C-alpha cells in the first residue's frame, strides 16, 4: 500500500505520522497582474516535518503567508482540521494554534528574551485585567503555569544564559533561536518556519536542524518550513513540496523529489536550444 494515502503510518525513525491537519486546495494568489501562486494543492499531516522548497521568487513565502492568514488567496480554500477555514486575521490564526517565524526575524528588540517568549504565550492567558493588576487568584496561578511552560522552552532551546538580555543585543543566530522559542511558547499545533537557516554558518545550521528535529520529536509539533538550502531540507523533512514560478513542480518524499526531472531542471537550469 502506498504509505502516503494511509490514515497514519510510522516512519523509519519510529515517529507516528497522523492524518491530514491542513490542506491547501487549489490555491491561486495574485498581486495585481502578477500570479504569485497558481493552482497549488498539498496537505500537511499531523506530526510530520513538511518542507516547501524552490528557487528565489518561487512563491514559497507567499504560500506561508497564505497559511498564516496574512494573504487571502483569490481562489482556492485552506482546510484546517477537516473544515474550510474562513477568511481570518493573523491574530485569529495564531489563536487557532498556528505559530510562525519570519525570514528577517520578527522579535521585540527592546524586551528581554524572557519577555519575548512570554509574549508568545499571551494567547494562553485568559485572566481578567483586574485580577492581573491585583496579582490575585487566577492571574497569579496562570502566570506561574505559563511561566513554567516558557521556562521549559527556554531550557529546551538552551537559551537560559541570555534570558534577561534585551534581544536587540543578541547576535543573529541566537535571535533566530529566540524567535523559535517565542513561536514554540504558544504550544502551536502547526509551526511555520520561514527560512530558519537563512544567513547562518554551517555550525549554526546544524544547531538549528537539531532543534527543529527535537521540537518535532519531543513536543510532537507539526512543522512546515521553507528553505532554499536543498541539502538541509532533504535531511530534515518527511515530505517536500517543490515550487517554481508559482507552480507546484514536485511533491513527495525527499528521495522522490531528488529524482524528479522537473525539480532537477528548476534547480540546475535547463538548456533551451
Amino acid at each position, binding site marked *: 500500500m502506498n504509505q502516503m494515502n494511509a490514515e497514519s503510518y510510522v516512519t523509519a525513525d519510529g515517529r507516528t505520522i497522523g492524518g491530514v491537519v491542513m490542506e491547501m486546495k487549489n490555491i491561486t494568489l495574485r498581486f495585481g497582474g502578477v500570479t504569485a501562486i497558481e493552482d497549488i494543492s498539498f496537505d500537511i499531516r499531523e506530526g510530520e516535518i513538511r518542507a516547501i522548497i524552490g528557487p528565489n521568487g518561487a512563491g514559497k513565502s507567499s504560500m506561508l503567508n497564505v497559511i*498564516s492568514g*496574512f494573504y487571502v488567496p483569490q481562489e482556492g480554500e485552506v482546510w484546517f482540521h477537516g473544515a474550510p477555514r474562513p477568511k481570518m*486575521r*493573523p*491574530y485569529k490564526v*495564531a*489563536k487557532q494554534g498556528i*505559530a*510562525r517565524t*519570519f525570514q528577517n526575524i*520578527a*522579535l*521585540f*528588540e*527592546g*524586551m528581554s528574551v524572557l*519577555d519575548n517568549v*512570554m*509574549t*508568545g504565550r*499571551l*494567547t494562553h*492567558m485568559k485572566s481578567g*485585567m483586574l485580577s*492581573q*493588576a491585583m*496579582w490575585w487568584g487566577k492571574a497569579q496561578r496562570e502566570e506561574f503555569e505559563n511561566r513554567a511552560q516558557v521556562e521549559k522552552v527556554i531550557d529546551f532551546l538552551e537559551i537560559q*544564559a541570555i*534570558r*534577561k538580555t534585551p534581544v536587540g543585543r543578541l547576535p543573529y543566530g541566537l535571535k533566530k533561536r529566540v524567535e523559535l522559542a*517565542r513561536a514554540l511558547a*504558544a504550544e502551536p499545533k502547526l509551526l511555520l518556519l520561514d527560512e530558519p537557516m537563512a544567513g547562518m554558518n554551517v555550525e549554526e545550521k546544524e544547531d538549528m536542524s537539531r532543534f527543529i528535529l527535537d521540537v518535532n520529536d519531543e513536543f510532537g509539533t507539526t512543522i512546515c518550513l521553507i528553505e532554499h538550502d536543498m541539502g538541509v531540507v532533504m535531511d530534515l523533512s518527511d515530505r517536500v513540496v517543490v515550487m517554481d514560478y508559482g507552480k507546484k513542480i514536485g511533491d513527495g518524499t525527499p528521495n522522490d523529489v531528488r529524482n524528479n526531472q522537473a525539480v532537477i531542471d528548476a534547480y540546475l537550469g535547463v538548456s533551451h536550444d
Partner: protein
Amino acid sequence: MSLQDDIKTRIIPDRLNSRLSGYLKSWESLLVAVAVAVFIINSLSSPYFLDAWNLSDATFNFTEKGLIALAMALVIISGEIDLSVAGIIALASTAMGYALQFDVGTVGLVAIGLSVGALCGLFNGVLVTVMGLPSIVATIGTMSLFRGLSFVVLGDKAFNGYPTSFAFFGQGYVFWVITFELVLFAAMAVLFGILLSKTNFGRTIYAIGNNPTAALFSGIRVDRVKMILFLLTGLMSGLAAVCLTSRLGSTRPSIATGWELEIITMVVLGGINILGGSGTIVGVVLAALVIGMVTFGFGLLNIPGIVMSIFIGLLLILVIALPIVYRRVRKG
C-alpha cells in the same frame, strides 16, 4: 574537557550588574536628581517658593497635563502619537459650556466632558486603525478639527457661570493643601503604572511598540489595542477638560492652546522612547513633576510665558536628541 563543555558548565548570572547599580544608572534616578536640583534652585531663587500654599498651587502646573501624559505615554509606547489632545480639551470644555445653557447639573457636565473626550479619542482610533492613516497625520487633522468646532460654536465669546459644586474638581481641596487634582493625578498614575507594568495588556503595548508584525502573529489584536489606547487618551483629555474648566470657571475656544507640546515633552522627558517600545510610568510622573516645578519657578521669577515656551521647545529637542547622540558617540 573541550572548550564547548567548559562554556556550557560556566555559570552566567541573570544580571551582570547588581540591582542597585541598575537603579542608579536608570533614567528615572537621573530625573529624581534633576527634580531635587530644580527644587533647591527654586527655593534659593525665590523666598515664596517654600510656602505650603504656593507649593500646592504649583501642582496645578502639571496635574491636568500629567493626566493626559499618562495615557499619551501608552500611545507613544505602542508606536503611535496623539497630537489632538489639546483640541479635545477645547471641544469637551465647549460641550460642557453649551450644556450649561440648558441647566445641566454638575454630574451631567462631568459625564458630557468625559463622553465627548472618549468620542474624540474613538474618532482618532478609527482614523488610525480602520482607515489606516498614520497617527501623526490623522491627529494633526483632528487637532484643528476639534478646536475649529469649538471656535464655530463660541466665536470670540465665552461660556461662564458654572455651578459652585462643579468648581470642586479644579479648585477643591481634599485635605489641607492637598488638592483634588493632585489626588486624582496620583490615583491615575498608580492605576496606569499597574496597567503598564503588571498586566498582560501592558506587555501587549510594549510588544506592539517593539514590533507590530510579530505582535500580530503572536495572537495580539494590534488594532483593537491601539483603538483602546486612543479611546483612553481621549477619555483622559476629557477628564483634564473637566478639571481645567472647573479651575478656570469658564470656557474659551483658545483653552489649553499648545498643551500637546508640553504633554509630549513630559512623556519624552520621562524616558518614553519617541519611536515606541520602552519607558515607564514612574518616569512620566517624575518628568511631570520636573516640568511643573520649572514652569512654576519661572512664574515666581516673573519670567514671561514666551521664554517658558522657548524653554519647553529646547527641552523637547534636547531629550529626544540626547539618547541618539549618546548612542552615536558610544558606537563611533
